[in-house]
């Protein structure tokens, strides 16, 4: 076997051009995956940041009934609110890695500008606490945040454009209060924001919490409390811990981590897309290797016949071919990984200005990209793609190698 191993590796140099071309095909397949993986990884990280920074925070405290209505029935019910008292506030602040918390009173409304109407989500917020949890403060393109008690609102620039609104204009929100009566909340536009979160840009109207409480007739009540932590990766663990504590003190409240929110589940689609690209890449590698093995086998028929005449068994002939293909896979894989390192490094350091490249606002299309998109290093991805191309190279050579090894030795010796 050792001799066959040596022979297989010597054969790599035999058809140097073919080995190089096949390896380059594999290397480019590996490179494509690595670049794609880096960009998708960057985009997923950006998506997480977009969701956490503008929509979900790290943890959300709300009643179980509210969670079910919101996630299952897409409603923002006013009958499942709760009061944020001092004891609850203290318990929340004692959570490990706690940075800030902000209450929200969410409601469904119809936004009117005097001419047109659009359905929107209204959010009653405490601007100071909200600013500590979310990153909206940096995203004002016009105007600024309101103060508590002011009849003023903040909304997305895109929504404002759709409704032909500007800072200083007045809006009317038609709402149904807690008793089911229709009411209106009038507000002057204090500021317009533009973020990488399309939901914030075109669906949400922020108002002072106390103004919303009056409008909805829900004094002292909130829909949820959003918590910001030091580390997003601890969210699930801490949600469990805080949830356990609250079960004792505030029985109907539960805690949900950011990655259980509906918005995050959409990101799973990117993962499926990545697997699809992965499969295509492996297919390219497999076709290149199968083609190479068949050509090599056809060229070496006489040699295969001679090896069988010397007493080599089919499995030993297959072993030699498979090992040769493994060698090609390894060369292509190493080359691809090296090229990948060279390709990912500038993407991580300098990023890619996709929005600039296509000259349009990608956030409007649901892509969480504002400014440059940065790639991420994923060493595990490098290792996996390398391992997979080597395995696929080996496996894809088995059938053509068996085809060659199974040839009648008499026919192969005499090239019949």
């Amino acid at each position, binding site marked *: 076997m050792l*001799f066959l191993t040596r*022979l297989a590796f*010597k*054969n790599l*140099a*035999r058809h140097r051009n073919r080995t190089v071309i096949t390896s380059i095909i594999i290397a480019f397949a590996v490179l494509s995956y690595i670049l794609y993986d880096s960009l998708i990884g960057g985009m997923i990280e950006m998506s997480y940041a977009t969701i956490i920074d503008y929509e979900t925070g790290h943890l959300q405290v709300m009643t179980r009934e509210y969670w079910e209505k919101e996630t299952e029935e897409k409603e923002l019910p006013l009958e499942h609110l709760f009061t944020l008292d001092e004891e609850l506030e203290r318990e929340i602040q004692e959570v490990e890695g706690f940075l800030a918390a902000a209450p929200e009173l969410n409601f469904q409304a119809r936004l009117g500008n005097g001419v047109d109407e659009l359905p929107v989500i209204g959010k009653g917020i405490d601007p100071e606490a909200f600013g500590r949890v979310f990153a909206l403060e940096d995203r004002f393109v016009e105007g600024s945040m309101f103060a508590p008690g002011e009849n003023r609102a903040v909304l997305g620039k895109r929504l404002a454009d759709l409704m032909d609104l500007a800072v200083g204009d007045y809006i009317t929100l038609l709402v149904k209060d807690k008793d089911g009566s229709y009411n209106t909340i009038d507000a002057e536009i204090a500021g317009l924001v533009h973020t990488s979160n399309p939901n914030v840009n075109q669906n949400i109207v922020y108002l002072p919490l106390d103004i919303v409480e009056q409008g909805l007739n829900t004094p002292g009540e909130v829909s949820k409390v959003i918590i910001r932590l030091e580390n997003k990766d601890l969210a699930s663990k801490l949600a469990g811990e805080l949830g356990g504590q609250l079960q004792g003190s505030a029985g109907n409240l539960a805690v949900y981590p950011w990655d259980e929110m509906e918005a995050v589940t959409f990101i799973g689609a990117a993962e499926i897309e990545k697997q699809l690209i992965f499969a295509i890449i492996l297919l390219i590698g497999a076709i290149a290797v199968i083609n190479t093995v068949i050509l090599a086998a056809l060229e070496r028929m*006489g*040699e295969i*016949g*001679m090896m*069988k*005449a*010397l*007493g*080599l*068994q*089919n499995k030993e002939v297959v072993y030699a071919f498979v090992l040769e293909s493994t060698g090609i896979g390894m060369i292509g894989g190493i080359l691809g990984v090296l090229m990948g390192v060279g390709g990912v490094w500038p993407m991580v350091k300098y990023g890619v200005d996709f929005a600039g490249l296509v000259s349009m606002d990608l956030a409007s299309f649901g892509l969480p990209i504002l400014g440059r998109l940065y790639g991420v290093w994923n060493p595990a991805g490098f290792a996996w793609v390398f391992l997979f191309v080597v395995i696929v190279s080996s496996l894809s050579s088995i059938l053509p190698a068996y085809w060659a090894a199974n040839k*009648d*030795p*008499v026919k192969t*010796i*005499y090239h019949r």
Partner: protein
Amino acid sequence: MALLEMRGLTKIYDQGKIEVPALRGIDLTVEKGEFTTIFGPSGSGKTTLLNLIGCLDRPTAGTIIFDGQELGGLDKKDLAIIRRHHVGFVFQSYNLIPVLTAYENVEFAIRLVNKYEKKEIRDRVMRILAAVGLAGLENRKPNELSGGQKQRVAIARALVKEPKLVLADEPSANLDSKTSEEVLQVMAKMNRELGTTFIFSTHDPLVMEYARRLIEIRDGQVAKDQRRE
């Protein structure tokens, strides 16, 4: 003592709707240490007979007993084992592995036998290369050797494992007469020194001159079987 006994050996090739008989009931016995040439016109069945003797192919009917073992009941794997240990081949077109040196081409055959230590393998390979007149050329690759030298490497490869039988199919076909003679002298010497049985298939009168037994095959049958002193 008989190395090979063939009884009623028949080979029919099935070519679609037509059956082509290549051998029609051959009866032959080959003793150990013989230096035999099988000759006859093209299509007479020489190569087919060699392939059956060399366990590369199976007869349609009849039996072959190789060194006391009936080959009929053996599967592909067992036939490969017999070839690996007991049969050496020399082909018209040498069939050397181009990426290996002369030494490595010979080493390949003895490695397969898997019964020698590293040092013994080296000694045997070097000894056989010297015996076929290739001392000093062991590190050359086939493309750096002449036709005669390539055939000597093929002979060394066939002999290095000390097989019971060497089958040579038209070994001189690609060589000039001087080189053919040199190669035949090498094989005759090995036959004398090692007692290896040689069976040739050829058209070449020079090869026939060297043979101590001449078997003529015509239309798949033994037409003449003549021994020389």
